[in-house]
């Protein structure tokens, strides 16, 4: 495409003083972008002088949809944000909703959410590591990393019936409890993954070609990482010791023993190492969570009588209600079992009390921001409640959006072959980027 016909690319198209520079399109459809995004590169021979990201190809109005779907329905949309680790998005969304409603889920639900979020982290990191290998020419590495991802999909299938778009969480609980079979599968997975990890390490960590392609490429200093709002493994690879699981522990992360993995280099190789180390930490967390999985309900307790029962509860008490501790004053927020809906009148009533457009749960007219440590970085939801069971505004702060803005800064001065290395190390998921 001639760049003169793309006026909004601005000064990148013309440079009178350096007519020998040429421009090249990278994407929107290119195997190494992995998703649909476009880069316009300005090249001096093989060296990248400047890059201009052009995004929005996958924009599908998720935030607008969030204003028209209720708090339970929207979880299906969050699956499609970072589709590499949908569980982490599910957990992030419903934590935000629960923070707005002021409810706290029971310990068993929290532990299961931790397990699935960490499994999602492993699955996301494995894909990122595999793709980093693939982009730099190591196909074996990619296949090695993909096998355990298949196992994780099997575990998710056993948990909720879906392999990919899980939608496992609900307001105040989960779609259903984890079955003993699923727990057994997780135990098996915990036994097998360390072997794969050491295979990956031995294959790549000291691989001359890989290290040469990664080391010193796309260096991000600590000051720049903070200045540009980085989070997650990318910030930690630059030495910013920030992990929301430690800094503002949500769920029951407080109970687990794990380390925050940091590196100093800030280059692609550091980002690779941080992700690899985080997989081992996630394994530790899952191991502790599975072995100490609390018994009890996975749903918050409620009056079971639907919303109409507590419309009279004064605002203050409702705002301060904390989960199961105050049965009787707590609104019923959890959808009843499908079996109860189909076979009992009480179940049917409480189902309709929640899903009918003129009922549903009452939210405070307030605004909250709730962030979780998603595999890619800080995944935050800014929700504005307006009293109904639909969000007035459901902003999603996706880490990919913030991280992709870094790209021109990281690639300047490197060669065109490094574009895929930097892109892979940032782990840009275009569906989360464009939302």
């Amino acid at each position, binding site marked *: 495409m001639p760049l003169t016909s793309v006026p909004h690319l601005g000064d990148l198209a013309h440079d009178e003083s350096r007519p020998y520079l040429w421009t090249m399109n990278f994407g929107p459809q290119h195997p190494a972008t992995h998703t649909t995004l476009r880069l316009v590169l300005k090249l001096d021979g093989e060296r990248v002088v400047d890059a201009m990201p052009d*995004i929005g190809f996958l924009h599908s109005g998720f935030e*607008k949809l969030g204003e028209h779907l209720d708090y339970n329905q929207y979880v299906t949309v969050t699956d499609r944000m970072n589709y590499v680790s949908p569980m982490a998005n599910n957990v992030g969304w419903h934590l935000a909703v629960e923070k707005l409603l002021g409810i706290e889920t029971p310990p068993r639900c929290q532990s299961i959410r931790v397990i699935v979020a960490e499994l999602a982290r492993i699955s996301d990191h494995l894909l990122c590591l595999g793709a980093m290998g693939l982009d730099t020419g190591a196909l074996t590495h990619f296949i090695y990393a993909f096998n355990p991802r298949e196992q994780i999909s099997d575990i998710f299938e056993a948990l909720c019936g879906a392999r990919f778009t899980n939608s496992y969480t609900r307001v105040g609980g989960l779609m259903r409890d984890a079955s003993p079979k699923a727990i057994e599968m997780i135990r098996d997975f915990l036994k097998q993954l360390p072997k794969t990890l050491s295979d990956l390490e031995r294959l790549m960590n000291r691989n001359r070609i890989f290290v040469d392609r990664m080391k010193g490429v796309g260096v991000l200093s600590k000051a720049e990482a903070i200045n540009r*709002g980085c989070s997650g493994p990318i910030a930690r690879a630059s030495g910013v010791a920030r992990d929301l699981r430690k800094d503002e522990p949500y769920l029951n992360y407080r109970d687990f023993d794990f380390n925050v993995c940091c590196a100093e280099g800030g280059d692609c190789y550091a980002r690779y190492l941080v992700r690899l180390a985080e997989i081992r930490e996630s394994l530790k967390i899952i191991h502790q969570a599975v072995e100490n999985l609390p018994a009890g309900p996975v749903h918050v307790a409620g009056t079971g009588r639907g919303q109409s029962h507590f419309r009279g509860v004064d605002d203050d008490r409702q705002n301060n209600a904390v989960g199961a501790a105050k049965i009787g004053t707590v609104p019923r927020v959890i959808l009843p079992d499908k079996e109860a809906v189909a076979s009992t009148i009480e179940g049917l009533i409480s189902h309709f009390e929640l899903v009918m457009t003129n009922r549903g749960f009452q939210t405070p007219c307030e605004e*909250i*921001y709730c962030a979780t440590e998603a595999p890619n970085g800080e995944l935050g939801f800014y929700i504005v409640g307006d009293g109904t069971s639909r969000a007035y505004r459901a902003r999603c702060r996706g880490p990919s959006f913030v991280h992709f*803005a870094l790209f021109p800064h990281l690639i300047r001065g490197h060669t065109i072959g490094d574009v895929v290395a930097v892109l892979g190390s940032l782990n840009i998921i275009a569906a989360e980027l464009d939302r």
Partner: protein
Amino acid sequence: MMDSRIIQQLQTAFPDLTASEFRGQTRVVAPVESVHEVLEALKEKFAFDLLVDITCVDYLYYPDAEDRFGLVYLLANAETGRRITVRCFVNDTDPTVPSVVGLWTGANWLEREVWDMFGVCFDGHPDLRRILLPEEFTAHPLRKDYPLQGRGERHNFPVITRAEG
């Protein structure tokens, strides 16, 4: 509490600042004239060095809302993780707030997204273009008066045929 000390110091410097708290989240509302100075003070003096997000809410149909657009700046401290939310409200037919790209480079794309989705202009932004939607798009779709299914953009989308291309 630490937060109340920050609020006190901020209010001494900026008397027309109001503060509130909800579920442990501290929020300050600054008038649009002084929002840039407030953010600068928070960054330089109170060490909120990380700009987490900039977003906007259109309060057109919100119960008891007085102003149309509410800007949201989410700040955090990279070391301690402490957070603060700064709000400011704008109203006009042509809402404008000062850009903070000079304070945080990361604000660039965030402000472009708010411009794209809400049509709030950022004064002093180096490159205020649409970011997610095509340049030819005329509306700002996250405004509340924009319908969910659009205004026919999907049906009237220019299709380039192979012969033309």
